[in-house]
């Protein structure tokens, strides 16, 4: 079993590498297709053609696209992420400044949203068709339907502007005590939980109900197994696969896709870095961010699949 698992992990890693390579090609091509280049973006509206030409040479943009891609790729493979074209700072340094912020936000949000979603999903599945289920259904559906910018803006208007309880902006640099931490993270985490909890809870409910309808649970019920034990001991292990996948998708979103929350709360995370990079046509930074997001996504999905396999004796012992 160990052997098959190792083979699986290795083959997944290999295919991930191929995927990353293809993604980097696509990103490079798309960035090249965008109107304007780094030199024009740096010099802005009032640049003369001579200035642009001089800067292009300085940045190496006068080389053909394939050569520039090769330069980037050969650096990337050896662990050199290159320099940001727009300000000359090493890309690794820019990432190092922002990545911890994104990871903390993701970790806090995960720690709150995953247990909450699982409990909500399980309760809804056990009380299927009842009032609790209907209320939870309504709540989660409305949460999915509400766009996060609306939730975030309303939260700011209420808690920061009207009540003055929480700061409207998130200054990660000012965390000195647990109270600071709570003040800064409450609203961003709340907003993100709004989006994520709903999706995960609905997935959990659907996956559990699928299992609860099956014959073996029916059998357990006829044998007199109490409801709680039926769900936790019998149904849940079989539903881990789809649930783990839903959680993985949500988490990969947390690492690279929280641009709206970062913008509204002025949180210095990595999604904002990538948006800056794209609008500045800062190729090395765009590529580094894309590789990071893509790598995180592939890793999380692989972990989810592993969870599914390990929790399923039929797959585990194959």
């Amino acid at each position, binding site marked *: 079993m160990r052997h098959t698992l190792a083979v699986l992990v290795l083959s997944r890693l290999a295919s991930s590498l191929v995927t990353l390579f293809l993604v980097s090609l696509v990103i490079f091509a798309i960035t090249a297709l965008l*109107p304007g280049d780094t030199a024009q973006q740096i*010099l802005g509206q009032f640049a003369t053609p001579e200035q642009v030409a001089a800067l292009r040479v300085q940045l190496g943009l006068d080389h053909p696209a394939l050569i520039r891609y090769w330069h980037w790729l050969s650096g990337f493979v050896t662990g050199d992420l290159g320099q940001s074209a727009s300000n000359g700072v090493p890309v690794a340094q820019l990432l190092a400044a922002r990545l911890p912020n994104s990871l903390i936000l993701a970790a806090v949000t995960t720690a709150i949203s995953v247990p909450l979603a699982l409990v909500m999903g399980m309760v809804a599945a056990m009380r299927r068709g009842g009032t609790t289920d209907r209320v939870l259904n309504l709540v989660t559906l409305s949460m999915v339907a509400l766009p996060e910018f609306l939730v975030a803006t309303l939260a*700011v*208007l209420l808690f920061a502007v009207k009540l003055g309880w929480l700061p*409207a*902006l998130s200054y990660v640099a000012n965390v000195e005590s647990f109270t600071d931490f709570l003040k800064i993270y409450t609203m961003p985490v709340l907003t993100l939980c709004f989006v994520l909890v709903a999706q995960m809870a609905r997935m959990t409910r659907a996956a559990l109900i699928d299992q609860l309808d099956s014959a073996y649970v029916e059998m357990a019920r006829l044998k007199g197994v109490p409801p709680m034990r039926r769900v936790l001991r019998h149904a849940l292990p079989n539903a881990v696969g789809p649930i783990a996948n839903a959680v993985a998708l949500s988490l990969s979103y947390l690492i690279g896709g929280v641009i709206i929350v970062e913008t509204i709360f002025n949180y210095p995370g990595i999604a904002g870095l990538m948006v800056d990079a794209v609008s500045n046509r800062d190729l090395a930074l765009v590529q580094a961010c894309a590789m990071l997001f893509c790598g995180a996504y592939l890793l999380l999905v692989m972990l989810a699949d592993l969870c599914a396999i390990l929790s399923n004796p039929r797959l585990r012992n194959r």
Partner: protein
Amino acid sequence: MKCDDNCETQLISPQQSQLVYRAMQNGLSRREALKLLGIGGLAAAGLGSLPGIPGAYAGETGDGTPRKGGSIRVAAHSSSTMDTLDPALGDTAIDYVRAFTFYNGLTQFDEKLTPQPCLAESFETTDNGGRWVFTLRQGVTFHSGKSLTPQDVVFSLMRHKDPDTGSKVMSMAEQIDSVRAIDDRRVEINLVSPNIELPSILAVSHMMIVAEGTSDFASGNGTGPFVCQQFTPGVRSVALRNDNYWREGGGPWLDRIEMVGISDESARINALLSGDVQLINSVSGRNAGRIEQSQGSAIKSVNSGNYTDLVMRVDQQPTSAPEFREAMKYLFDRDQILRVALRGYGEVANDQPVAPGTPYYFDGLAQREYDPDRAASLLKKAGLDGARVPLVVSPAASYSEEMGQFLQQSASRAGLQLALNRVPADGYWSNHWMKHPLGFGNINPRPTANILLSQFFLSSAPWNESGWHNEKFDQLLIASRSEPDAATRRQMYADMQTLIHDEGGIGIPVFLSDIDGYDTRLGGMQRTVPLGGLMAYMFPEFVWWKG
């Protein structure tokens, strides 16, 4: 000739004005203080600014006496990893503010846009603008402790001419032929061709003086009112008061200024209203009311000379017909654009690029009114009635979408079909601006009328938006740079504005105001420099916290 136009009003020296200021600090009123010098009559002659100490009268504005202390946060509308502390590369408001926070220029604008001595104690030209001598102030030190020397000035100015610097003002610096130290206090600047307005050019944020040989600007080592404690591009900067600042009897007052960028306008306003930041820029007219209605915050609107203009290429069809261009100018319902699109935060313009309130504004031109009938007859004359013409608009040129819609409506009344072509802001300036027969541009305020006209209307200018060629205009512009007589120069500027108004290829319907929002506990915000928001980016030295 000495100090440009200022000779006309500069009747007391910087030393004297410092004396007056110190006397006032000791409890004398301004009138009494002036009597001290026996020049009380001057007060009636509009003594708006004493040379040498801009903002010296801040204490009279109803904000009480300035005092030291306090810490504020400022949020600008744009901040990215491109943020820089290299003055030459400054690109957005937050860069300009940081330049004035950590550095000084040789000169500095006062509230009338007259360049006053700053790091240069005095300056003069010996031959009507061709050769200049700047005498440096003594005892000025950089934050690193190094003394200011003429070599720093030579380095700071000459680096703009090097293409590798990537300076934003390279084209402006091309008029500088050489900069050299005469002795240990004086610097000589020789220009390629005379320019009487050199002191104004040296007052812009890009021309700040840096220490000789600096290659890494991340520490913000200047002579300015604040010392850089922390700077993270795209995140924030922290500035602490420079207690060794060379200027006596004025700011800086605040202990600490933290600057961040908040790109989302409503997030920026919410941060102000919730008290997380105390000063923001780039508020739109639509949202200014929210700040005005709130407790404890206020707006400050400055007519800065910023304009969004209709660009009509004279070298393309159908905009090459002079009648067509004139007709388009009559199709602007300027009052409506001001009222509806700008919510009143602006000023009606008259197709002349020099803004009211700046030196050289010519007020003798009759206002061009909204007149679709006249436009219709002009279009008929050009054989273009009933034509269908595309008009390019974009969010990149502020309010151009709204202006385009109003134009479209009024054009249909004059028998012209305008097809609005909306293009994205991303890449607009390199791919669309000045490339279509009919489109929009947006021109940020320039420090002097001469720079504005040289950059955007001279036949040979790279940003001559409409491709307009007028020999008479070109001659006037070149001649005005070395004209020593102020009245003659004024007349030349009037003639140039008339030419642009009558024949030029651009239509300027309105000037846009810059709107800042601030916490009313911030003192000194009454000071206005008509070049842009945030006190033309120079607020750090002039504001204080009332607590």
